[in-house]
Each structure stands twice: as C-alpha cells, then as structure tokens.
C-alpha cells in the first residue's frame, strides 16, 4: 500500500518515460536479436534463410502455381499446364481435381455425403468431450450412441433404404478417424484393467500376465502386429471363419494402444498419494468401489495431459495400416497420384495431407497444454 501511495504522490508531469535504450522496439531488437556478435550472426543467417525460403515458397506455391486445368470432352483432366511448370510452380490442380478421392477413397461417389456427416459427427464428439463442463457419466452414453450412428451411416442399412457399402470400400479421412477413435475408445477400458492388474499386489499371476503383455507389445513395432493380424490371424481362426482386413487391423491397433495407455494410467495410479488408498480401506470400501469411487477419478484426472499426448501418437500411427493394404487418408492420397494423369505431383498431395494431420495433432497438443496449465493452476503461486 505504501508503494501505491508513494507513486500517487509523484505529480504526473514529473514521471518520465524510461530512456529509449531500455524500452521500445530498438531496445527489444538489441537484447533479443543483436545481444552479442554470436547472436547477431545467427540473426543475420536465419533471417536470410527464412526470407529466401519464404520467397521461394511464395513463388512456387502462389505466384507460379497452377490452380485448375482444362478438362476434355470426356471429363478427363489435361495436366499439360502443370507439367509445364514442374520445378517452378506448384500444381494445386491435382487437389481440386482429386480432393474427393483423397478424402473419401473408394466410397461410392453419390453416397459421399455419409462419410462427410461422419466427419462432422466425429468433430462434434471431440468438441463436446474436450469441454470440461461435459465430463460426467452421461458422456460415455453419448460416445456409444454417436459411434453406433457413425457405423450405421458408413455401412448403411437395407431396411432403412440406404445403400450398403461394405468396409473394403471405405477410405480416406473417415477411415483414419474411425481407426483412431474406435481404437482408443476400446483400448482405454482394457488399458485401465491392465494397469490395475499390473499394480495388483494380491494377485501375482494376474500381475505377471499384465507385465508380459505390456512389455511384449511395447517391445515390438506396430508393423509387426499389423503383419501378425494380416498373415497369422487367419491361421488362428477355425476353418471357414474369417474376419475382414479392417477389423483385424482395428484389433491390432486396440491391442497396441492398450499397452501404451496402460503405462500412462499406471503412472497416474502411482502418483496418487498412498493415504487415499488407506483412507478408502479404512472406510471399509470393497476393491471395486474403492477403485471406482476413490482411485480412478483422481488417477485419471492426473494423467489426462499425457493421455492426450499418447492419443496424438496413435492418431499419427494409424497411417501405418496402409502397409497391409487399407486405404486410410495417407494411402488414398498416394493412390490419387497413381493416376497416370497426375503422376509426379505427389509432393502437393503430401503437403495437403501433412496439413490435415497437423491440424488434428496441433489442436490436440494445444488442448493438452491448456489442460496442464488448468490443472497446475492450484499448485503454481
């Protein structure tokens, strides 16, 4: 209070601006850009490279780019204008021509409103789940309902008068979202059980089983599991029984994700103070109620930021399914430039795909950082 009083006592006219060497853009530049000869050299070098790269990209991607190409009478595009500027300008025409294939794969052209609605449903589901106001029990039911609706829309149903589209024709962004979302939604309960099993002190056999499962899965690459699902799984089934490729890949992703998520959840269980367990025991709660009412609500809350980081990893890893011949977003993009007309314009498509993946992952990582800040607010002075 004394400070404020003293400050108020100084007449306004007597206050002076700090000298220009301390505040203002010139001083900012001097401390942050030209602090030492080493810093000056770095500034000049990075500035030069950044300007050159930015100019190169603008010239390639905007100034000399080809945005559309003429189509002949049969509706076939003519890529000659693009071929003329190879190396000088980008050919965005490949995207305006092929964007529906890249986004939806081989899904029947007239029915593509259905995957589009699915994408919207997914985005809505993520948006609602991200809002802490909606973190309650009913959210689980919403998830089940929306995921069922998405399956119905994608597959169609003859009784409702919709064309049936079997899952070998699904592709593009909806497929990537399905693999990631269903994978995580089903892996999560499994992961919680494995994490609890691994922490169990009274059931050594169950603990051993969980340890072996987690370490085995985390020790091998996802590709080997996908290989296993595509070449070994048919051998495991009785003769005549066969699951399709997509379902097998989904199972492999669930098993893979569960092992990693289990380790994250275990971190949360370990971080919980021992007093919480002891207090629950002292109240005479059974194991199930102790876990459901005391342990999990607190442990899961601690691990939400690392969980979101794990989700980001899995969202990116779903792209690996192209190795066993599934048309996810990445593979649809690659197949789009297999068309002889557009051969050689892969980098433009890759830039689009990178932008799509980046949007999803960056949104998740921003969100995770925001949560972390929100959770730690009580601990930061």
């Amino acid at each position: 209070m004394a400070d404020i009083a003293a400050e108020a006592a100084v007449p306004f006219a007597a206050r002076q601006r700090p000298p220009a060497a301390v505040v203002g853009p010139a001083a900012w530049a001097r401390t942050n850009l030209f602090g030492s000869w080493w810093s000056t050299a770095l500034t000049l070098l990075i500035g030069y490279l950044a300007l050159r790269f930015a100019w190169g990209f603008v010239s390639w991607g905007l100034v000399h780019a080809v945005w559309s190409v003429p189509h002949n009478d049969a509706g076939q595009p003519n890529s000659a204008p693009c071929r003329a500027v190879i190396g000088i300008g980008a050919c965005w025409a490949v995207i305006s021509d092929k964007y529906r294939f890249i986004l939806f794969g081989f899904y029947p052209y007239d029915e593509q409103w259905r995957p589009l609605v699915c994408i919207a449903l997914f985005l809505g589901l993520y948006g609602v789940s991200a809002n802490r106001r909606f973190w309650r029990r009913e959210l689980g039911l919403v998830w089940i309902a929306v995921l069922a609706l998405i399956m119905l829309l994608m597959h169609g149903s003859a009784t409702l008068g919709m064309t049936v589209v079997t899952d070998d024709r699904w592709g593009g962004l909806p497929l990537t979202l399905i693999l990631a979302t269903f994978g995580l939604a089903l892996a999560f309960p499994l992961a919680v059980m494995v994490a609890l099993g691994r922490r169990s002190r009274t059931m050594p056999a169950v603990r051993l089983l969980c340890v072996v499962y987690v370490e085995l899965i985390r020790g091998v690459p996802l590709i080997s599991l996908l290989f296993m699902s595509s070449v070994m799984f048919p051998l495991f089934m009785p003769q005549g029984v066969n699951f399709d490729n997509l379902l097998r890949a989904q199972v492999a992703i669930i098993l893979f994700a569960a092992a990693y998520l289990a380790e994250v959840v275990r971190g949360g269980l370990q971080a919980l103070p021992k007093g919480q367990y002891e207090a629950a025991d002292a109240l005479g709660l059974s194991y199930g109620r102790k876990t459901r009412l005391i342990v999990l609500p607190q442990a899961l809350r601690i691990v939400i930021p690392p969980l979101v980081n794990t989700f980001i990893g899995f969202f990116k890893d779903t792209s690996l399914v192209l190795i066993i011949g599934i048309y996810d977003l990445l593979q649809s993009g690659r197949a789009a430039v297999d068309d002889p007309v557009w051969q050689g314009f892969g980098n433009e498509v890759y830039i689009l795909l990178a932008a799509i993946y980046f949007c999803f992952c960056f949104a998740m990582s921003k969100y995770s950082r925001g949560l972390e800040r929100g959770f730690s607010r009580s601990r930061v002075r």
Partner: protein
Amino acid sequence: MSGTAADPRYAAPRAAPRRRMRLSWSDPLLRNLFWQVVVIGGVVLLVWYLVGNTSRNLQARHIATGFRFLTQSAAIPIGESPIPYTPSVSTYGRALLIGILNTLRVSVIGVVLATVLGTLIGIGRLSKNFLLAKFTALYVEVLRDIPVLLQLFFWYGLLQHLPGTRQALHPIAGVFLSNRGIKLPWVDWERGDTGAVVAFVLGAVLTWLWSRRAAARQARTGVRPATWPVALLLLVVFPVAVWAALGAPFSLDVPALHGFNFQGGITLSPEFAALLVGLVIYTSSYIAEIVRSGIEAVAQGQWEAAFALGLPHGIVLRQIVLPQALRVIVPPMTSQYLNLIKNSSLAVAIGYQDIVSIAGTTLNQTGQAIEGVAIIMAVYLTFSLSISAFMNWYNAHIALVER
C-alpha cells in the same frame, strides 16, 4: 544408542503371522486365488484353442512348421548388403541376417545423428536470440505433428525427383546427388589409419585414467592438476605421431562420373538416405523437447548459486546443470531411441530392405507366416530389452544418491 537393539519399540516391524485360508467366500485370500485361477485358466484355454486351430489350418495347407527353411536358398534380390550375398544361392538365414544388419545400420547412425541434432535444436529453443528460438519452436511443432510415414514418403519422393546421374547435383566437391542415391568420398583405408585409430583409443583410455588421478588429487589436496595438456598430447599428438610414423598415408576415394555411372566413393541409396533423413528429423524434434524440458527442470537457483560461487560458465554447465538435467533427460530419451529403432521398420514402405522387409518377403515365398512374424518380433524384442537394460544401468549410474 547402545540400548536400541534391546528396546522392543525399535525392533523391525514383524510380518503378520501366516493364517490358514478359510473355505469361505468372505475370505479375501480365497477370492484372490479364485480370480487368478479364472483369469489364467481363461488365457490358457484361449491359447489352447488358437494353437489347435492353427495346427489344423497348417495341416490343411500342408505347411510344415519349424525353422528348416532358414537353410534353403533364398530367391530374394537384395539391393544393399554389408556382407556378401547372391540371390538363389545364399540361404534365407543369411538374407535375414542382412536384414538385421541393415536395421542396425540405420538405427545406430540414426540414433547418433538424432541425438546431436535434437540437442542442438533443444538448446536453440532456450536461446535468447528471438529468431533462433522461434525457428526451432516452429521446427519442433511442425515435425512432431506429421506422421513419420508421411515424412518418409516426402523425403523419398524428393530424392527420386533428383536429376539422373549425368546431370547429378554437385553442391560441394566430391558429393553427388542423383536419383541413384548420394555419392560421398571415402578414405582409402590403410595400415597407418588403423594405427592412428588404435593410438586414439589408447590415448582416450589413458586420458580417462589421468583425469581420475587428477580428481583423486583434487579430493586430497584441493588442487587439480591441469588435464588439458595431457589430453592434447594423448588424443591429438600421439595418434598423429603414430600415423606419421607409419608413412602418413592419405588418399581420398573421390567419386567421379564415368559413362553412365559413378566410380569410387561410397553410395547411400535413395531408400537408405530417405529413411535416415526422415527418422533423424522426426526423432530429433522429440529429443529437442526432452533436452529443453530437462534443462528447464534445473532450478534457476542452481545457476545463481553456482555463479555466486564465482564458477565460470562452462564449469557451471558441465558440473552443476548438466548432471541434474541428465537425470530428467535419460528416461524419456531411452524411449525415443527405442521409438527410432521401432520406426525404422517403416523402411518396408519405401523399399529399404530391413528385417521387416526381408522377413515379409521370406514369409510370402515360403508360407512360414508364424516363423516370419516370430523372427521379426524376436529381433525387435532383443534390441528393445538390451537397450532398456543398458539405459537403466546408465540411469542408475547417474541417479541422485539419496540416503
């Protein structure tokens, strides 16, 4: 203090006496036993069912199980191989060995380069220079959020679009970039070079011994004998002297264009180069974050206290900050190394012949699906477990010794 042992209050806590299990559902011991039997029994039944199905399926398809196919000759064409190999003559075992060596080659080089690049970027993010900090932040944010497979395709596409050998790009003397790969000059290895390397290793061991002696002397007397003249002598002068004594051989094998192809030098194939560049850039963005958070985790007061003692900047970094930062850095760094090794299996997508690629071809040719997948898994499990073991040992070595 002499009376402590006799005092019953100080005695070690005794274990609860063993009690007999009651045959009642209200006994937790019985319930635990029951659930364990149920879970393990379920798993055993499932495995038994799957094994039964598998053996019936294998019989129906007339596939013999076992690893006998390893000694059959393999019809797999292999582009790059560190050991001699002839398709249709050499065995599947040899082909798989080449796959393992190729995986190791890209992993080891990748881990080293990713660590160096990641550390530089991570330190750059902490720089006071605004442009450098923003540029490295952009690097990390963008590269972490794009799937590594997409990045591999991008680099591979870029390398394939390079001009042919006749118009190869030639950025610096002796380096050629073409769609056949990257050509680099290489030293002609001679006896003098081997001698110099041996001398250097010997010098490194002696330097280490000397610095231990110096530390012991410092602990005893408080005065540390100078280390750098000895290090200079042992690490630079001694190897150079050995090299000169053996005739100072030095000749570079520089690639040169002869007709349609290059002669001399070493080649990095486009597949290898794309895989290496992709893995290094992707992993380095993660390592940069680990290094940055590790350094930031060291409390500001540690720097201030060290400077207050009058220690120079280099010593503060080396003796005060880094040892504390390493404790935070090592565990996540281990998992990044493991990730890099596991991600090297994506080689199969761009045609570099690592273990997954060769085992995949093997299982297609021989039909030995189970053995093929088992080999892939065994190889990666061996890598993972041995690196985990080493890093755990290292982590224990640098961990804070508490009471």
